[in-house]
């Protein structure tokens, strides 16, 4: 009996420590690709002129536009930096924000990552890894504005975003620098990377509306039904006119 109680406590403790919900075994997965249909050449990335600040790019590294980043090596062509999340269907479920720190880095005079997603109240650190002055400026719709100068390399600033929001971030010193931050009330979100794929794990069984948002192409949505232990695979396609 004592051994059983110990096992239960260990499982609960392990789940809490890892951030995984207790019902993880009774959940499903939503995965897929964000596909681009059209002429990829029309959305080629170009080099950004950083001559406004000779400290940018002095190591010889170039930066490119990030408003559309296509993965042309994959077939079909997929899209990077798409924010995929559950929009509807979670009901009144409440989720606790993980304590893992998320970092928004100013590196090579651009932001890493270009689209950053986190949960309400999750710790966020803004870092300046460049040997130049940056002024990070959040332009939130509902959260508090952040407008901070970081003149020296290595400077960090901790902020907390406590309300659901999707907004733009800019640098007031380097006009080409921009990124987006999304704040969620739940942990079911994903930002597509090089492969253009997404995966929402530990989704409780139910019917959901899943949304894909891209800063240039806009939003797409799809209805998904998740069953216990099942993986639903569905792609979304951006077809810009």
């Amino acid at each position: 009996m004592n051994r059983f109680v110990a096992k239960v406590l260990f499982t609960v403790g392990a789940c809490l420590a890892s951030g995984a919900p207790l019902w993880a075994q009774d959940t499903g997965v939503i995965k897929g690709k964000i596909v681009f249909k059209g002429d990829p050449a029309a959305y080629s990335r170009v080099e950004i002129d950083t001559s406004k600040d000779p400290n940018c790019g002095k190591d010889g590294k170039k930066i490119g536009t990030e408003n559309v980043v296509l993965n042309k090596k994959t077939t079909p062509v997929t899209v990077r930096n798409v924010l995929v999340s559950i929009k509807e269907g979670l009901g009144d479920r409440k989720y606790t924000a993980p304590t893992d720190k998320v970092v928004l880095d100013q590196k090579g005079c651009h932001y890493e990552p270009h689209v950053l997603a986190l949960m309400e109240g999750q710790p966020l650190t803004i870092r300046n890894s460049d040997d130049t002055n940056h002024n990070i400026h959040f332009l939130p719709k509902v959260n508090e504005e952040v407008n901070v100068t970081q003149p020296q390399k290595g400077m960090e600033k901790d902020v907390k975003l406590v309300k659901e929001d999707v907004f733009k971030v800019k640098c007031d010193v380097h006009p080409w620098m921009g990124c987006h931050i999304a704040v969620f009330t739940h942990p079911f979100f994903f930002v597509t990377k090089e492969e253009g794929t997404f995966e929402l794990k530990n989704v409780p069984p139910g019917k959901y509306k899943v949304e894909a948002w891209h800063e240039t192409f806009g939003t797409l949505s799809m209805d998904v039904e998740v069953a216990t232990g099942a993986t639903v695979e569905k792609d979304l396609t951006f077809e810009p006119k």
Partner: protein
Amino acid sequence: MKFAAVATVVLAGWCVWASPALGQQADAPSTVGVTITGDYGYGFPPDASEHGHEMDRLIVIVHWFMGVLFVGWGVFFAYCLVRFRRRPGHQAGYDMIKAKPSKYAELGVAVFEGVLLISFSMPAWTKAKSPPDPATAVNIRVVAEQFAWNFHYPGKDGKFGKTDPKHIDTAINAVGVDRSGEGKDDVISGELHVPVGEAVICQISSKDVIHSFGVPVLRVKQDAMPGMRIPVWFKAVKTGTYEVACAQLCGNNHYKMKALIVIEPRDQYDAWLEKKGAPPKEFEEE
């Protein structure tokens, strides 16, 4: 009176003693890792424009004049404090002074100011406010924004394309040029390049708040007003790399609102314009 005389002698002595130090040349400043041409000390920055010496002469004359007035009035003030101090048996009088020297002094100041205005300021400003024919000059639009300078060149066709905020892309089209028409060959740069020895007309404007286009080495300063396009012109006579600065407090990063101005021979300027006018290179991730 003795006190005033002593104070004047001490002040004059300090000026003579300190003058070599005041004239010392400091190291040329470097901005954002780029060495700026010329010697910078406590006096004027280098003069790289055709009209700069006129401005400098005016500033020097005005400062000497102010110095004379300052010392003169200071001495007179000190004299009055001592000469008309409170003493038993003396009472203040409230009648206007009728002495002639003060009238002559006031008349002298007025005449000097008149000479200053008519002989120095007006010729200099008439020249500054009479831009050359835009058809023969180099035309550049200078667009300020918090906290950067954008320089817009008309390209090979010599015509500026239409601009519209809807075309603004902060990464590659900071001034919102419509690339479909005459703007297809327009050049947008973060550095200001101008050919040496040629008249340049800059049309100054702002995308947001009031800024000021200040180029110390050219003795040029003009406010950038949102909603207005204000011309300012100059002829650079010395090649080199210098600084453009914002001369109007415009926000928390005002101090970083700088750009480089490169004054270069015509062939180098043409080569730069040709290079900048080329379509942007496709970016390939490493």
